[in-house]
């Protein structure tokens, strides 16, 4: 019994896994890089016109939070774990353009410093976890939040958007594996989507909890730190 207790507390040596090199074919890897580079370059241009002073330190804080929280794998069904992706959370707080830059910085450094995710596959990892999650999370939240009311409604909209962002991201990853010939789509798609429907619940809970925490401790941060395009001078 004691040994089981200690084993549960033992440091984990099997951390998160982003797509390693070898899983994606050359064309899929190149397509991933093209989408990632175009999206991040476009995001940088758009952020130029929309960022205020407060957005810069917040970008650092959100990068730190996403990086650290991605290390915290939580168990899901059947001896599998998941971790926060964070794209939806950062997009809701910083707007989509600054969020894509933050996510690309985190995923890029995970590959370069920690060998988490391959360097050839880095473009696809940024596309899946840094571009798609931000786009789906942001759009989902913007569409859903006007339909909801109050604190609970806000959290619900954020949670649903976060869940959807993870599921869509996993579907895209499955398509990349299928097109690469690594795993047939008929196998990869249900397997990836099935697990990420569950992992997405963790994403939803952490996203809603983090927003709730910020709402209580520093509500000023929830005022968008990016100026909406129409009111930018």
């Amino acid at each position: 019994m004691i040994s089981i207790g200690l084993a549960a507390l033992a440091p984990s040596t099997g951390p998160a896994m982003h797509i390693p090199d070898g899983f994606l074919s050359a064309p899929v890897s190149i397509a991933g890089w093209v989408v990632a580079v175009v999206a991040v370059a476009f995001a940088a241009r758009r952020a130029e016109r929309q960022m205020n002073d407060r957005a810069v330190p917040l970008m650092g804080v959100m990068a730190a939070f996403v990086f650290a929280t991605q290390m915290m794998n939580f168990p899901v069904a059947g001896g599998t774990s998941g971790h926060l992706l964070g794209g939806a959370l950062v997009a809701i707080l910083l707007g989509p353009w600054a969020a894509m830059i933050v996510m690309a910085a985190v995923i890029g450094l995970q590959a370069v410093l920690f060998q988490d995710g391959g360097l050839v596959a880095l473009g696809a990892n940024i596309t899946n976890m840094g571009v798609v999650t931000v786009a789906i999370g942001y759009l989902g939240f913007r569409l859903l939040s006007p339909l909801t009311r109050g604190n609970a409604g806000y959290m619900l909209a954020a949670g649903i958007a976060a869940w959807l962002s993870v599921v869509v991201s996993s579907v895209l990853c499955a398509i990349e594996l299928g097109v690469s010939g690594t795993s047939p789509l008929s196998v990869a798609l249900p397997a990836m989507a099935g697990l990420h429907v569950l992992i997405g619940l963790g994403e939803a809970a952490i996203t809603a909890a983090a927003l709730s925490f910020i709402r209580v401790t520093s509500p000023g941060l929830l005022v968008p730190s990016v100026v909406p395009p129409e009111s930018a001078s």
Partner: protein
Amino acid sequence: MTQTSHRKLILTGIVLAIVIAAASAFLASGSPDGLERVAEDHGFIERAQGAWYSALPDYTVPGLGDGAASTIAAGAVGVLAVTAVSIGAGALIRRRSRNL
């Protein structure tokens, strides 16, 4: 927002993140994650190629072993690195926007 409150915000974020990273050394699930599980179950995990170099592999610092201290140190390095790069990128974009 003043320069001081910016600094306080960044410092708070770094401390919180390092606490989370440190806690992950003890609390994180060691089970394979979603993609790893699918790759194991459906027989393509062996296609994974390691990197041609390793800096802080598996979120550990070489020389510190693979215990909690190693994970905490690697996590702290990562937190500082992602914070610096993101603030750097943000500041660069912000400076360009001032020059528009």
